[in-house]
């Protein structure tokens, strides 16, 4: 009927038909009003009104679903009833889990299809009319989920609430909760379009109410809708935070009642914490965005923000910063996510905005925030170095002189930062020292303190000790005080390794006494709790040296700093014993343990480094015990350095400042050598030996006016200069097919040139600076004498001598030391040891050794330093005896010379004259000759060559007759010297006759000298 009439209305026919049909199409299960009434009654009473029996759960639920479909007014009641059904199903489900399947499958499976049915109906409704149904169902579902999950949390089958994944698995395998979750997701997806705040609010409320059992829901939803949920959750949290007031924000820090006073923030943290695993980037973005938006000046806001968003309320904007701080305080995850990038945002304009924003807050609140910020910084696991740099940069007062890296911010901002930094230091101080006390004081706290012991800020800064030290050493006004304090805390916190590192860095990087003083200031408080710090630091420095991580400048600085440290010890000893003294002693002893490491630096290519090294070594005490290998190494390098220093002095003498440094280096070197010499017989011997060998080495010969010559005495010729003589030793050797050493044989006249080609051309050698040579010789002799006269050997041989020492008198040369020199000289000058016995043969026998004698003579020619050395040896009687072979060889060649000389006067061959004089005087000094004979050299310059020969021959004869034997010397304790009693030897008179004859012959010129030769 209805249809007919509808048709009749339409002018041209059919379009109404379709529409009308939707009317006539009513659900097949449409019930009459009476039936519906019966249904309602049944539903209310739970009894089938027709048959009068009780409804089963299933039937009751079916009835409810029918009502839901047909009687709109019943929906509240139906949904409420369905709560019970869902609950029942969950119970059954858990029960069957608990009884492991042996029990009934009936109840659970029966209800499962009902739940499917309900779910189908609800999701159909939501799909058809989301606007009407989504808010309704979402509220219901969330509430029911919360109720179910907290009600059944204690069940045996339910995992603990902390294991989120298991919870999620359990609940998602349960049909009831899964269906609820799906329905809620569907609602949320629909509602996000028009009222996202409301649904997130509901979620948070429920979460608060049923936390932590509800977390799985939030986690699931959050990961399904990360983009919206994060920002919404934050906005909700902020609103709630704001409405709860900020008065109790400080409580969260203390840890007692986390989050209980500000209910939503706890769940905000929880939710974001869950999401952080997979969506940390978006969380970070949102947090930073919130911070930035809260600062951006109010007024025309970004058009995208809806009117309901928090940005539009000034109150909320002001609360945003405290809120974010609070969030960060409650969740290390969030803190970690934000802290690193936050600092980058804090440019000066932002800081000004922040200041403007926070100015309105009351004092107490600001203090709370400050405390919170300090806490957060100390807990932030990453980016601490950047935070610190930012704080220090901002807090450092602007200066006209030093313009910081950033433009100076507003004064208020600076003061705030200053305050923040000081509070941070104070806080860290408390943490660090409480941590130390906590361990032993309260045993029952140990578990708790275990977690508190870790201070993430300091943990992270440990990696930046080097930079901190460098910053500190810049000595910028307040900054270095802060940083120094921080270094101190860091060292205490990090224990020996960090402290060592810090000290080591300071030692390496300090460039002047003020900066170096920072190292001692650091050490003073640390020494109490960290024993053995300095040795460790020094060892670490040495390790650095070994790994070549330091550049030459740093290396030099380190060495100088150490030297300065040790020297301060001496100064302190003079003055009152201060705090530094003990430290200086420690440094000294620590360095002395590593001398062998430092000594290698003496030969460093950079003069500055080697200078610094010698300064350190010369000021460092020597170790009480030391292995011979180290000592030998030390002495060898020290001697090598000595010659290097001499050469540098010679080269740098003209430059001025460098010259002064080189001179100081020589002095230090001398000091070092003499101390080494005094240290032990071994070192003395080694030093002397090396000194002599070094002085004669062809590389060093020119330092002492010597010619650059091989030990054969020939100055080498540069190949280009020497004409090709067509002679080759190799050819000759090949021709004879032998490798026999021909020295001493006829073939060795190669010395003088090739037979038949005339004499070898002597290379003209550049004249060394005579003043320099003299200075060098003096230095070398001074070193040698100092070594020889030091107590190293004397102590062992005759300790009783010291008291009688006349302070004006130079100390006597030690015989043993002199012997070392003597032996070394012989070894270096004599090419072979044939005929090396001490006693002299008759003069004629010298012919057999003419080759060697020539060699010896050339040596003396090439090395003027030999005579002074011989003098030294002579002074250390009876050491000269050991030079007997050398003396003999020289004397033999001199005899030959004077014999062959056709000059009118001895002065015509100056070198030979000088050599003769020196030789005789040496032998006299060394008491190889009696005084009468020892004085003959005084007359040489006045004589003819022949007369000189006569006198020298007399000397030879004497020595041949009275062999130069050490056992002829006896120690005289009153002189502290060995002396030879010539009276025990044969009559001197017969050797004196030639002298007297010569005197007689030349009495006109030698009369004044006659008294010298009285017997």
């Amino acid at each position, binding site marked *: 009927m209805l249809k007919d009439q509808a048709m009749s209305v339409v002018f041209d026919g059919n379009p109404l038909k379709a529409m009308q049909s939707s*009317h006539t199409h009513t659900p097949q299960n449409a019930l009459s*009003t009476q039936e519906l009434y019966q249904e309602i009654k049944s539903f209310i009473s739970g009894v089938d009104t027709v048959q009068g029996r009780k409804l089963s759960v299933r039937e009751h639920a079916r009835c409810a679903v029918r009502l839901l479909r*047909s009687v709109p*007014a019943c*929906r509240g009641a139906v949904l409420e009833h369905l709560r019970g059904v869902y609950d029942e199903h969950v119970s059954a489900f858990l029960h069957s889990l608990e009884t492991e399947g042996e029990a009934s499958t009936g109840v659970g499976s029966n209800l499962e299809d009902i739940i499917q049915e309900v779910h189908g109906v609800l999701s159909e409704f939501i799909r058809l009319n989301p606007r009407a149904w989504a808010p309704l169902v979402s509220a219901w579902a969330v509430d029911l989920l919360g109720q179910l999950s907290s009600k059944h949390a204690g069940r045996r089958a339910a995992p603990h609430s902390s294991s989120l994944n298991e919870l999620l698995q359990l609940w998602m395998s349960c049909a009831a909760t899964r269906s609820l979750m799906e329905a809620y997701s569907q609602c949320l997806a629909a509602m996000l379009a028009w009222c996202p705040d409301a649904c997130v609010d509901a979620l948070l409320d429920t979460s608060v109410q049923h936390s932590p059992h509800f977390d799985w829901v939030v986690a699931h939803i959050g990961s399904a809708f990360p983009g919206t949920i994060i920002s919404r959750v934050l906005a909700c949290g902020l609103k709630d935070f704001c409405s709860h007031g900020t008065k109790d924000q400080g409580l969260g820090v203390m840890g007692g009642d986390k989050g209980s006073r500000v209910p939503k923030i706890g769940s905000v943290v929880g939710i974001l914490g869950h999401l952080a695993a997979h969506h940390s980037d978006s969380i970070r973005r949102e947090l930073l965005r919130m911070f930035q938006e809260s600062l951006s000046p109010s007024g025309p806001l970004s058009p995208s923000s809806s009117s309901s968003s928090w940005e539009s309320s000034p109150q909320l904007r002001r609360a945003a910063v405290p809120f974010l701080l609070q969030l960060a305080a409650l969740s290390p995850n969030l803190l970690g996510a934000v802290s690193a990038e936050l600092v980058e945002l804090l440019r000066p304009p932002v800081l000004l905005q922040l200041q403007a924003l926070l100015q309105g807050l009351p004092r107490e609140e600001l203090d709370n925030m400050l405390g919170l910020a300090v806490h957060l910084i100390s807990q932030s696991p990453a980016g601490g170095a950047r935070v610190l740099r930012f704080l220090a940069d901002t807090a450092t007062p602007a200066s006209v002189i030093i313009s910081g890296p950033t433009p100076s911010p507003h004064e208020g901002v600076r003061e705030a930062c200053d305050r923040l930094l000081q509070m941070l230091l104070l806080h860290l101080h408390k943490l660090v020292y409480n941590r130390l006390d906590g361990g032993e004081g309260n045993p029952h706290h140990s578990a708790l303190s275990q977690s508190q012991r870790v201070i993430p800020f300091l943990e992270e800064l440990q990696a930046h000790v080097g930079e901190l030290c460098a910053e500190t050493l810049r000595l910028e006004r307040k900054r270095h005080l802060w940083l120094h304090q921080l270094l101190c805390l860091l060292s205490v916190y990090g224990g020996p390794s960090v402290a060592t590192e810090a000290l080591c860095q300071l030692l390496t990087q300090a460039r002047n006494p003020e900066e170096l003083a920072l190292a001692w200031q650091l050490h003073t408080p640390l020494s109490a709790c960290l024993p053995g710090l300095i040795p460790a630091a020094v060892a670490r420095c040495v390790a650095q040296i070994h790994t070549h991580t330091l550049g030459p400048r740093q290396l030099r600085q380190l060495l100088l700093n150490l030297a300065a440290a040790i020297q301060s010890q001496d100064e302190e000893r003079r003055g009152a014993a201060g705090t530094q003294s003990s430290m200086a002693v420690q440094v000294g002893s620590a360095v002395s343990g590593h001398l062998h490491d430092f000594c290698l630096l003496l030969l460093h290519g950079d003069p500055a480094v080697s200078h610094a090294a010698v300064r350190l070594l010369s000021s460092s005490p020597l170790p009480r015990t030391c292995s011979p290998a180290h000592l030998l190494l030390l002495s060898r390098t020290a001697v090598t350095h000595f010659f290097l220093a001499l050469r540098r002095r010679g080269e740098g003498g003209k430059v001025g400042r460098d010259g002064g440094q080189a001179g100081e280096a020589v002095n230090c070197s001398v000091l070092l050598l003499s101390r080494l010499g005094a240290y032990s017989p071994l070192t003395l011997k080694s030093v002397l030996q090396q000194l002599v060998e070094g002085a004669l080495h062809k590389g060093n010969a020119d330092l002492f006016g010597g010619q650059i010559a091989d030990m054969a005495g020939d100055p080498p010729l540069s190949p280009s200069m020497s004409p090709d003589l067509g002679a080759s030793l190799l050819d000759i050797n090949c021709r004879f097919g032998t490798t026999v050493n021909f020295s001493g044989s006829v073939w060795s006249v190669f010395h003088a040139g090739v037979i038949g080609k005339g004499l070898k051309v002597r290379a003209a050698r550049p004249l060394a600076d005579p003043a320099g040579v003299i200075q060098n010789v003096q230095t070398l002799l001074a070193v040698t004498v100092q070594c020889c006269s030091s107590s190293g050997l004397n102590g062992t041989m005759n300790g009783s001598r010291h008291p009688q020492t006349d302070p004006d008198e130079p100390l006597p040369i030690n015989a043993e030391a002199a012997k070392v020199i003597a032996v070394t000289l012989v070894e270096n000058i004599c090419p072979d040891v044939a005929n090396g016995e001490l006693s002299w043969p008759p003069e004629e026998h010298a012919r057999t050794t003419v080759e060697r004698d020539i060699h010896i003579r050339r040596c003396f020619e090439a090395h003027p330093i030999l005579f002074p050395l011989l003098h030294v040896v002579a002074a250390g009687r009876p050491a000269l005896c050991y030079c007997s072979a050398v003396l003999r060889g020289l004397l033999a060649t001199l005899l030959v010379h004077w014999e062959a000389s056709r000059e009118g006067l001895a002065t015509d061959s100056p070198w030979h004259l000088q050599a003769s004089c020196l030789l005789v005087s040496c032998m006299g000094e060394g008491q190889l000759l009696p005084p009468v004979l020892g004085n003959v050299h005084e007359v040489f310059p006045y004589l003819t060559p022949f007369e000189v020969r006569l006198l020298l021959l007399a000397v030879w004869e004497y020595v041949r007759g009275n062999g130069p034997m050490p056992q002829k010397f006896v120690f005289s304790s009153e002189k502290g010297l060995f002396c030879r009693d010539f009276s025990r030897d044969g009559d001197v008179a017969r050797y004196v006759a030639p002298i007297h004859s010569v005197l007689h012959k030349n009495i006109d010129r030698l009369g004044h000298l006659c008294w010298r030769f009285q017997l």
Partner: protein
Amino acid sequence: MGDIRQSLLPRDVLSAAKELLYHLDIYICNLVQSGRQPPQVDTKTLELVEEFILHAPKDRNAPPRRMNALQELQLLEIMCSCFQEQSRDTVRQLMFSALFSLQGNQADESRMALLGKLVSMAIAVGRVPILECAATWLQRTHRVYCVRLARVLVDDYCSLVPGSVSTLYNIQSSSPRFCCQFITAVATLYDLTSEELTPPLELLQMIVSWLQDDPRLVLITFLNTPLSGSQPISSLDLTPLGGLVRWCVKAPLAYRRDKKQSLTNGSSECEPDVGPLFSALHLSVLQVFMLLPNILNEKGLFGRLALLQMEPLAALTSDLSRLLDQADKHTHSSSTDTHALSQLALDRLAQALQVAMANGALLCSREDLRAICSRLPHNNLLQLVMSGPVMYFNNIHTPPLAFSPHASHSPITTHPTHPTHPTHPTHPTHTPLASHPSSHPQYPAQPFLSGMPFPFRPSH
């Protein structure tokens, strides 16, 4: 009655409410039997109702008592049977108003909520007495609340529960009075100003069917109400005619706007076209107007009672002119389509005005009409209606179209099918009553002789 409070207090929520209902029933019976005129329920009782049924917070300290949804359902069920079993109309009415008359206090919110559920449930289970009471309530209550109740019902039956419209459809037969009031409320609620306020398709279909079944349905309230002049202020109109005319006139423009939005939104749901529905509705409305002269004459009210008021009409025309302006501005592309729709709206307006005036539902002069329609663009039919059927009127009032001051507003001047030639006022016998130009665009200006009857009834 006030003394039972102490005995109610310790009860649980549901049984207290139940007991109060029981006592209320007895109390009102006594009240009616006592014969006091007018029977008045005292304030004490009303307060009890608020406390134990509506659970308005009595004082701040007491924890609010609340029923859960199940208990509420039980209460509703009890109320249903309570009203059903009460045989006396007066008692029922008194009880209903004791429960649901708005008191202007904070209990009104819960009162409205409970009323909505009760009426909704009464519809579902066919409780006629409650619907009758509700119809009375709708007559007496401020229209804001009437509209709220209507909205609850529409939400329940047209959007929340799919397929339940048929239940609502049945109220036509079970309680025509309620049905009429419901239509009035709905026509007041949905004024087509926004998407929110556009009637759902199901509702529209239902109302069209109702009217096609029996056009007199909308007059039932009017027929049953003695005109005592005691109509409460700002209650609903006597008939939904004004609202329905508004629907029909604005629909072409309003739905076009909606369609365009849904197109731009990309959600191209294949909604059935509502145009024919509104055509049918329009026809029904005109038919109702045609019924009026007899009824009014019976009541002796012809020419004395205006069922269509002038103010709403003026509001409608100004709305319409605004809509047309917007349509003009915003659509350049489908201008022919727009033009046809605007003309449809204007045609419907002209038809409704003409028929209403002719049948005594609208009491005004053509001067007045011209005043309220002055801002509308040109429409031939409207022009005719405004000028009236009388040929000897001074033609100053109907200047040739070319010189019309409104012509500049109108995009119609270039309408291809319209004669650009001005109408000839010198041919009064021609009163062209345009049929639907949308359906017959090729015969736009079919002239009718003045003596011929209006083709309000399709010839079949």
